């Protein structure tokens, strides 16, 4: 039975996960799962079911305002969605072929390596907000992936070019595999693919990741819905909180300087990477 206290706790947890998820373009499962399992003593099985719904709620809540403010890149999203959905389906099909412990460690190392790249980017001289004068990528031009957005923090229209499309596509396959196999990293890997590999600015990367992760999560959500691992008394108050949090977060994000977003992102990535590697060794945090 649900108590008024639990209900409030889940609404607030959802609200915070939604804000953070919308700002960073991540699913928020890694924030919600520890609270549900450690603080509320819920079985990990039900926590995973709730996380899937939280990802969809973050995505849908954030996408509303990102679309209105033209922050996200719809072509990049749809093109890369081919890779994430194929990855997610293959991941689900491959379930059990490779031991999960090894997968957790491999994906964890990949996340840690990406946070190292992010730190280098933060300390480096290349500024996020300014337009980089790079030569166009022919594949990106053929697919018309280049875009622009209005940065409310610097009050400037930022035009950007997308690079290394095959590399980004490959990373999105990995992102799909990770979420299909382990149900994790739904957004983090997508931001990494766009920001680190395809050299998109951080804000449209985060906004586009928000749009995409809902589609990827929906692909695997029906299994959890029909096998009873999505518990309504938990998933619903969380989702309501998340939707409002994500709507708020997507507004906050647009006023933050890209550097600030990156400073929040790096410890979250380090935490995610560590969480995954520890899980590989059988430690849940």
């Amino acid at each position: 039975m649900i108590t008024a206290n639990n209900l409030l706790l889940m609404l607030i947890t959802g609200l915070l996960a939604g804000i953070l998820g919308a700002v960073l373009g991540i699913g928020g499962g890694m924030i919600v799962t520890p609270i549900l399992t450690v603080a509320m003593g819920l079985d990990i099985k039900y926590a995973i079911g709730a996380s899937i719904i939280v990802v969809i709620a973050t995505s849908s809540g954030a996408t509303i305002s990102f679309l209105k403010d033209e922050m996200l890149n719809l072509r990049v999203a749809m093109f890369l969605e081919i890779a994430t959905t194929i990855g997610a389906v293959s991941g689900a099909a491959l379930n059990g072929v490779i031991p999960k412990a090894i997968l957790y460690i491999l994906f964890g190392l990949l996340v840690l390596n990406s946070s190292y790249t992010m730190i280098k980017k933060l300390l480096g001289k290349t500024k996020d907000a300014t337009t980089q004068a790079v030569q166009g990528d022919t594949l990106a031009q053929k697919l018309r992936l280049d875009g622009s957005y209005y940065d409310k923090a610097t009050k400037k229209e930022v035009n950007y070019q997308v690079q290394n499309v095959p590399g980004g596509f490959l990373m999105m396959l990995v992102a799909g595999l990770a979420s299909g196999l382990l149900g994790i990293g739904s957004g983090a890997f997508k931001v990494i693919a766009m920001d680190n590999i395809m050299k998109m600015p951080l804000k449209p990367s985060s906004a586009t990741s928000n749009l995409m992760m809902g589609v990827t999560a929906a692909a695997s959500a029906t299994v959890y819905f029909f096998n009873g691992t999505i518990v309504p008394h938990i998933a619903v108050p969380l989702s309501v909180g998340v939707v409002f949090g994500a709507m708020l977060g997507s507004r906050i994000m647009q006023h933050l300087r890209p550097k600030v977003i990156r400073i929040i992102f790096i410890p979250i990535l380090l935490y995610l990477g560590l969480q995954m590697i520890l899980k590989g060794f059988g430690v849940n945090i």
Partner: protein
Amino acid sequence: MNKQEMNEIELIIGKILRIGVIISVAVMIIGLLMLMIEGNGGYSANQFPTSFKAIGQGLLALKPDAVLMLGVFLLILTPVLRVVVSIYAFFKEHDYLYTYITTFVLIILLGAMIAGYWIGR
């Protein structure tokens, strides 16, 4: 296609998506209010409806948990709605490459969701 047309597409998708999200959140809030008022979900402890049939019957009996599950299901459908509307919007803007790309995404997505239904039920 220029940027202005792309922005129009995004506005159309944004509007329809907003309606979808509002509906699913409204159903969930109604369900939560019913749960608070009645004090229980209308099912025995740790039980809740997970099949279309059980949810439908629960809705007719005005059981809170059935309303909550309907809200969750509607929320799961919102990303599908986003893809469907994108296909229409790209098609309307004569962007056939992206009409195909997005249709392909929809096919994989629906395939995965239907497979999930058969595996999960």
